[in-house]
């Protein structure tokens, strides 16, 4: 009788020691562990990230037919020119008035040839068109056709350096987010400038938004402004998901 209780207690002690050990490792060696590890609440997301990266490989999400396209709510920021009272809002309004001819996507960081792309320059790359399902963390989904340039083509053009691991992106509504290179180089990760056969509408992120098809909708950032290739994980500070209380990896 006593023996069985001892086993239970020993099991609890082993589990406790393992948990404390995990935290020590997470704090001392943040580079080798998935980002956001070390936070109890996000430990499950880090585990999901590790498990999905280890088990799933680089497969394409399902693509739908033209008749599958559905209505699509625009949520979050739907006009940075109205929402943002800062210089960003002012800059966005100016570019919007000029049909985004002045808009540039700056690509910098761990790259051999940093440069800024105009919308016309992005459209010179071979386009990719895909009809995919947008999956919002709120629980709704919508299907739309997206046209754009694969992010991998743009990264090839600037030449990412060997130590590069993440692509950090920021937007005119002042959000910063990032993805790892496996998502950045995924064939369906595109810088989309077209939606349902037309220019990307204002409410859906004009002139260019990201599409990260294997993660939740909020990783597909609208109103793109800047891409920074980094060697280390950066959480984006107050403008990033993590400090705002959201998971970094959302493959589920």
């Amino acid at each position, binding site marked *: 009788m006593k023996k069985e209780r001892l086993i239970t207690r020993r099991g609890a002690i082993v589990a406790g020691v393992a948990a404390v050990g995990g935290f020590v490792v997470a704090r001392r060696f943040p580079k080798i562990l998935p980002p956001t590890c070390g936070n109890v609440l996000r430990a499950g997301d880090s585990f999901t990230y590790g498990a999905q990266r280890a088990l799933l490989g680089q497969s394409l999400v399902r693509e739908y037919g033209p008749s599958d396209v559905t*209505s699509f709510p625009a949520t979050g920021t739907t006009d940075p020119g109205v929402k943002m009272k800062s210089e960003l809002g002012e800059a966005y309004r100016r570019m919007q008035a000029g049909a985004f001819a002045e808009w540039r996507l700056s690509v910098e960081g761990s790259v051999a040839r940093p440069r800024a792309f105009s919308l016309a320059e992005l459209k010179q790359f071979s386009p990719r068109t895909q009809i995919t399902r947008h999956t919002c963390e709120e629980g709704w989904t919508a299907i739309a056709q997206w046209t754009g340039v694969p992010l991998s083509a743009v990264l090839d053009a600037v030449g990412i350096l060997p130590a590069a691991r993440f692509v950090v992106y920021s937007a005119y509504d002042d959000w910063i987010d990032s993805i790892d290179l496996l998502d950045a180089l995924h064939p369906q990760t595109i810088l989309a400038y077209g939606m349902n056969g037309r220019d990307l*509408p204002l409410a859906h992120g004009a002139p260019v938004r990201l599409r990260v098809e294997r993660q939740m909708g909020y990783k597909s950032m609208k109103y793109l402004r800047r891409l920074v290739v980094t060697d280390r994980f950066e959480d984006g500070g107050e403008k990033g998901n993590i400090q705002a209380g959201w998971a970094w990896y959302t493959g589920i």
Partner: protein
Amino acid sequence: MTDRPTERIPAKGGERHAAWVRISHWIVTASVFALVFSGFEILMVHPRLYWGNAGNDLTPALLELPISRNYKHRGYDQPRPFFASSGGPVSASRTYDIFNQNGWGRSLHFLSAWLLVLPGAVYLLAGIFGGHFRSHLWPRMKELSPGLVRRELVDHLRFRIPPGRGGPRYGLLQKCAYTFVVFVAAPLMIVTGLTMSPAVTSAVPFLLRLFGGYQSARTIHFFTSVVVVLFVIAHVVMVARSGFRRQIRAMTVGE
């Protein structure tokens, strides 16, 4: 048979719950509690259920649940059609500040899902190879005679619950309920949950075909969770009726 109460009280040294059953029981209890709590929060954010792959505020719902201020909020500006043809898909911008606590809700949900899946896998393997399922959980053929089934049903409906035996000698309906939860409800919850993962379905697109789409899987996930909650309520009521203190002792210290 003549003296039923003594029959129900186990002999000294009767079978007790194995340590691994007790440990996994309480881990799964904590996990299910956190999953139901966070799952309800997630549903509150978008309390609409659909069938198929796509569904949102601009498409008709199968069912809408009045469980948060997001219920039928209709806070959208003028819809604009994507195509020239009338009656086609539209875009509209949301103007309503919705309730949304998914920042912690989703992370808690997946953290507790891991807490369910890992001990659950150990429980399944130990149960299959250790004979626990065969000898304790799976109803025996002779128990399934119409007379016995009817007696069990009538006893339960009249709320005549025999005192617990403090171990894995389960009654017929008890066996059926546990077998259903372990082999039907829990796997269905997990697989429909995985079908909502865009990364998982990119690798295993079969899941979307199996359930008829993302939103169908979400709807099945919800209804199965209702079944699980009903099971938990029935389970707790039965534990209370059959001697709460004794049953809790049996499932914690194993006496």
